[in-house]
């Protein structure tokens, strides 16, 4: 099998005001045909080759990818190059995909409990500027207002060849693949990457709290986040937080699961991760360490926040127990290796690392980088997660019981 991934350096944070959800809507339009491909052709060619495909929109990048039998590699390169030269942007395709995206939002956000929690709901509590705070799925109003001209401009600006990275991984010959890539991408018009704005915001200096009534939710929930060092410019400062999230929440032997779930029974589940989309090595700053917990019906969010503070204090003061850091690092290394067993997972990670860091080989160093984090660094990281730097969002359940 081979994995083919094209990532573009554009995401939710680059959307213009008044066009919330546009990066994602545009991703859908990239599947609607291009210079040499009619509508339906892209996915028929991929699947008719025995392959699978998808695309997704993130805070800082948008990806398009396929996993296919090795004999379909050249076809996949053709398909990606064709839409890089220019998708077929028509009014009919736009209206059709606005409808599809609205259904996607209904499934994932509007018609279910905890929809968009916390990834769409916590950023506006933590951040003040439009790029970081707005709803990346978009309002129906903005989606409906999107025009073909907007799409053409978005493509012109952000879908420049100079703003993209192609990765190919798997059962292939590198020299031969280079020839195929040249053959299909060689005449994609050169356009430079647009300047990337600085999305930076100052850290919080006092605590922020918000509440949201969720009519479908049966249980209270809370998410909290603290800003962390810049993942790109300060990798050394950032890595301890990646480890800390696992020390706090990876399984029954983690600090917060043991305390809150198993001992106090004050939450029914808790998870922790880096970045609002939980991809520690595919996001730029500003970003955060996020904790997300669901409470029993009579649960008390105030108490959960206080206990998290207490546990962070304890970690910062007393440090880790014997073997605690090593076992968390062992599990993290094994998870990283597992992701790269899949040819696409490996290629995709390399493409994003190249895009954001110019260092695709970092995929091989990640387990060692995680392993190099020291106990003192984890302690110091825990010590920075203070209430006055915290943004939190409580979900107030509004759902009646039907049992």
């Amino acid at each position, binding site marked *: 099998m081979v994995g083919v991934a094209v990532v573009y350096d554009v995401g939710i944070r680059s959307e213009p005001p008044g066009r919330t959800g546009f990066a994602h809507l545009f991703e859908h339009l990239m599947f609607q045909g291009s210079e040499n491909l009619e509508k339906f052709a892209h996915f028929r060619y991929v699947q008719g080759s025995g392959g699978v495909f998808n695309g997704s929109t993130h805070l800082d990048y948008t990806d398009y990818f396929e996993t296919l039998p090795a004999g379909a590699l050249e076809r996949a390169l053709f398909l990606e190059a064709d839409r890089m030269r220019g998708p077929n942007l028509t009014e009919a395709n736009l209206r059709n995909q606005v409808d599809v995206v609205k259904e996607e939002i209904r499934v994932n956000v509007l018609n279910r409990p905890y929809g968009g929690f916390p990834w769409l709901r916590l950023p506006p509590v933590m951040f003040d500027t439009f790029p970081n705070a707005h709803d990346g799925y978009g309002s129906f109003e903005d989606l409906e207002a999107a025009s073909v001209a907007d799409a053409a401009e978005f493509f012109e600006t952000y879908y420049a060849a100079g703003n993209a990275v192609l990765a190919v991984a798997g059962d292939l010959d590198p020299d031969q693949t280079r020839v195929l890539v040249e053959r299909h991408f060689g005449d994609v018009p050169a356009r430079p990457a647009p300047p990337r704005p600085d999305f930076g915001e100052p850290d919080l200096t006092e605590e922020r709290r918000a509440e949201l009534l969720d009519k479908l939710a049966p249980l209270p929930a809370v998410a909290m986040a603290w800003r962390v060092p810049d993942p790109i410019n300060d990798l050394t400062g950032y890595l301890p937080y990646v480890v800390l999230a696992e020390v706090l929440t990876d399984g029954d032997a983690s600090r917060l699961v043991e305390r809150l779930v198993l001992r106090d029974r004050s939450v029914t589940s808790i998870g922790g991760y880096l970045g609002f989309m939980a991809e520690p090595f595919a996001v730029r700053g500003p970003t955060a360490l996020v904790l997300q917990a669901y409470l029993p019906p009579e649960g008390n969010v105030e108490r959960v926040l206080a206990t998290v503070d207490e546990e962070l204090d304890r970690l910062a003061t007393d440090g880790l127990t014997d073997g605690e850091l090593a076992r968390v690092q062992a599990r993290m290394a094994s998870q990283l290796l597992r992701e790269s067993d899949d040819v696409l997972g490996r290629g995709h990670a390399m493409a994003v690392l190249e895009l954001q860091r110019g260092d695709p080989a970092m995929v091989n160093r990640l387990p060692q980088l995680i392993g190099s984090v020291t106990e003192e660094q984890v302690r110091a990281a825990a010590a920075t997660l203070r209430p006055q730097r915290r943004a939190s969002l409580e979900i107030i359940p509004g759902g009646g019981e039907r*049992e």
Partner: protein
Amino acid sequence: MRAVPELLPLGELTLPESAERTLPSGLTVIAIRRATVPLVEVRLRVPFGQADLPGASVLAQTLLSGTATRSNVEIATELQAAGGALSASVNPDRLLVAGNGLASRLDQLLSVLAEVLTAASYPEEQVVTERERLVDRIRVARKQPAHLVQEVLLRRIYGDHPYGEQTPEPAQVQAVSGEQLRRLHAERVSPRGATLVLVGDLDPDAILDVAADRLGGWLGGQEPVTLPATPPLVPGPLLLADRPESVQSSLRLALPAVGRHHPDHPALQLANLIFGGYFSSRWVENIREDKGYSYSPRSTVEHSEAGSVVVVAAEVATEVTAPALLETWYELGRLACLPPTEEELTQARQYALGTIQLSMATQAGLAGLASTYAGFGLRLDYLLRYTQALADITVDDVATVAARYLAPARAVPVLLGDATEVEAGLARLGPVTREPW
């Protein structure tokens, strides 16, 4: 126009190196080498047919909650130190303990697994905690439209069969005691008929000895209980379950299907793909890419040990509920009445063949596949026969099975949505009855 590059031929399916042994206890161990990353995947499948539903549900939650000599936290610590994790889940066919870890620490993973299987103690305090957590999860699930419509569909098509009720009631969960769990474990967490699949960077023959040594002491329990065959589908009016203010309707149609052993299986698989089983299908192109009614419509042939069924599923906007059902009837009827084109068949076949190879292209995928097949008495070599059968299917074969299994007249339709908004439109297409809840 530039020409789309031709495909190079799809490589022959090659099976990974493997070894298998059945221990005196009745446990079958299957070891498969895939040395791409230095890890190992573990899947233990224990037959669980006819096990008490609330008991089995709590058992899966508390299996790893403590043993005679180790607490829940100590178990988790030991696994994590091996770069690993294990978790248990249950369905009406089986209890599954699944996990992974560093290949160099497989011994440690198997030792923990063996200890849990032979000495899980279901401590009272953890049982209370896990019961309450399970009740909370059920509360949340019962607010999810996908879960609710699944409950309605299962009741409708399976009735009193054990598949008809797969989620226990909260009060039943709260009544399960540690004593009950220890008894259920002694009876049903048995090596008889169980299969342990190990996939990864390992020497299959050598690892069988290790597994036999670590797990050889897991003994006893009952013979597996065979489930009665599922009842035939009985078509009838559309069953409408009300979910007031729902902004989408959850549509499900059940259609008859056959198991992997049946001669119609390969053609049905391809007919289902052509209808709605993948993105490039008639139904998805119609209701998504042409009409924008739905985000991810999908049709799946689902196999369980006691029977198989095709489930056609879509979430559609409330205001287009009846039109979406109309198009669904139309596409099913069209394939049941008219043969597909050669091109459609070739494309679906290539997809089926390619995705089989894809499903074997990771340790986790291979482990899941081998474990699932083992539940049906199959091994991976089944795929050699199956891919050959797919290659031989003709347009006529697809037309025949589509008429037999995918005809609208054979469908059992169920819909969850805002009944006051959708009922009148649906009633124009055929009879509707309300789910009494």
